[in-house]
């Protein structure tokens, strides 16, 4: 493929982290607006303000760039993409029920690209999953995974994806964890979580309390590093393990 990638030095947030992207738009799914032209001579500080989502043509040099950029229709191929996800609030019967049940233990109900998710406190994840399974028909735990943001005070984001057959609806639960903080295991609620949580532990080092068999799954048991943490480069490996077990100096 002809596109040679430039590593694009600064992809970290350059603006002050906005707490909530409180976009005023109603959570309409926006059925596939045409893709922004590849050649978009994108305007700097592209934030479409409160303008309705119709940015087929990139706006001319903005008359007055609003500082509190809501970036509702964020899809500019611009060098300065908004630093936070342009999520919209998510409201439905389900969110009302959950809000009534869990109150401020759920900090946000949001939606991005038509996909709904909620952000909750670490201790609330398992009770919420249990309630989702028992009261709302979310019988199927699709996936458990994590993302590492080393610069944030709570560097790990733990994600549970659940699906309901009867509602044909899929939602995500997101929890923030501190480094070294243990998460509660979802195995008592969904058996599937067994291997999925072991993989999260294997890759990120997040331990799950209450898990019946908390050990590595893909890597050897004696392996020392957690590969998907951002501080480990792709070439990082456990030299000692390789030397002891494979009898070679290095795997590279």
């Amino acid at each position, binding site marked *: *493929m*002809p*596109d040679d*990638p430039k*590593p*694009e030095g600064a*992809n*970290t947030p350059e603006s002050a982290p906005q707490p909530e992207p409180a976009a005023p738009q109603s959570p309409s799914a*926006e059925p*596939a*607006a*045409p*893709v*922004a*032209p*590849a050649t978009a001579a994108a305007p700097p500080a592209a934030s479409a303000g409160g303008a309705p989502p119709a940015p087929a043509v990139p706006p001319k040099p903005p008359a007055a760039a609003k500082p509190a950029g809501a970036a509702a229709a*964020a*899809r*500019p*191929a611009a060098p300065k*993409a*908004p*630093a*936070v*996800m*342009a*999520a919209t609030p998510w409201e439905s019967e389900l969110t009302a029920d959950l809000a009534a049940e869990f109150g401020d233990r759920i900090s946000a109900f949001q939606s*991005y*690209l038509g*996909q709904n998710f909620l952000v909750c406190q670490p201790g609330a994840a398992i009770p919420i999953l249990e309630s989702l399974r028992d009261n709302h028909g979310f*019988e*199927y*735990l*699709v*996936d458990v*995974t994590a*993302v*590492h943001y080393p610069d944030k005070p709570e560097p790990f984001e733990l*994600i549970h*994806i659940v699906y309901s*057959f009867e509602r*044909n609806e*899929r939602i*995500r639960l997101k929890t923030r964890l501190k480094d070294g903080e243990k998460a509660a295991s979802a195995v008592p609620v*969904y*058996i*599937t979580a*067994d*291997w*999925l949580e072991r*993989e999260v532990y294997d*890759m990120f080092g997040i331990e799950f309390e209450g898990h019946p068999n908390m050990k*590595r*799954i*893909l*890597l*050897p048991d004696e392996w020392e590093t957690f*590969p*998907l943490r951002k501080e480990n480069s*792709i070439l990082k490996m456990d030299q000692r393990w390789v030397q002891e077990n494979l009898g070679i100096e290095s795997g590279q």
Partner: protein
Amino acid sequence: MPGTFLDSTELVLNMGPQHPSTHGVLRVIVKLDGERVLGTECVIGYLHRGVEKIAENRTYTMFGPYVDRMDYVAAVSNGLGYCLAVEKLLNAEATPRAQAVRVILTELNRIGSHLLWLGTHALDIGAITPLFYCMREREYTLNIFEKYCGARLTTHAFRIGGLQYETYDGFEKEVLEFCDLFEPKVDEYEELLTGNRIWVERLTSVGILNADDCKAYGVTGPMLRAAGVQWDIRKAMPYSGYDKYDFMVPTRVNGDTYDRYMVRMAEMRQSVRIVRQAVADIPAGPIMAKVPKIIKPPVGEAYVSIEAPKGELGYYIVSDGSTQPYRCRVRPPSFVNLQALDKMARGSLVADLVAVIGTTDIVLGEVDR
């Protein structure tokens, strides 16, 4: 048997990682009481390559070929899921023509994947002939892939936004020829197996996984449908234009190994049906949507899943606005389905364990990633 001089003790047996019927480097530690399986533990990871880490170090475009190497017998499906996920992040959609060609190739790939499963599964049970037949017919699908994109197994057939290549001259004709040739062949396999007494007795009531178990274990795909849950992502959350085609989602009720066999056989027929409809009406037009040459999705995340031959294949991609995925999680159907092996094998005979591994239809490249 207490009291006899023949002491009966539990035996721990290592099956694999090189055992031929584990379909790859899967090691199953089996605890046996005589012939009876008391419990199993899977040891996996022999093929772990760190695909998710690789994704974080490649651009969106460069990562495309890597996904083919996870479930390498269904590489086209893997590619489709990945492309759809990135397209979702870009808020783009492939052109109608690209979507139709994608459907055709994906369904041909599903047939190929099911054929390989059928052949090897039958071989494990002791029926050698179907393997040769299945390989013979699978060859036709591989030839079509080869003619289309130059590769047979790890095809990398799709690109983000559509297709790299226009279909070749006579593509439709060849695909239709395959459909005509293949449909009677399914009858032929069924003649060999479906009513075959050995086959029926070896598979019926073996490795039962009912609907509740399937949901609790997150088991998807043909295994879930064999337990009576009519759930297929192509119907539930249609993607790539699947809602335009008329097809059935075959189900059975018992959730045993025989039912899973029946479901997969019926699925191959349905795939042919989809392919016929898609080929009859490939829209004209461009094969590539207007996506940027350098893929840089805005900050955000998306989870997109498709119905791969083995179950729900999902991609959860987090973008930080750069050219490389910040995180790319693959939700592999084989990995999750394999977890139910212990549930299925417990209490069965050791010979049935082979049938149960076969019926799970795992590909270790995907289990280990």
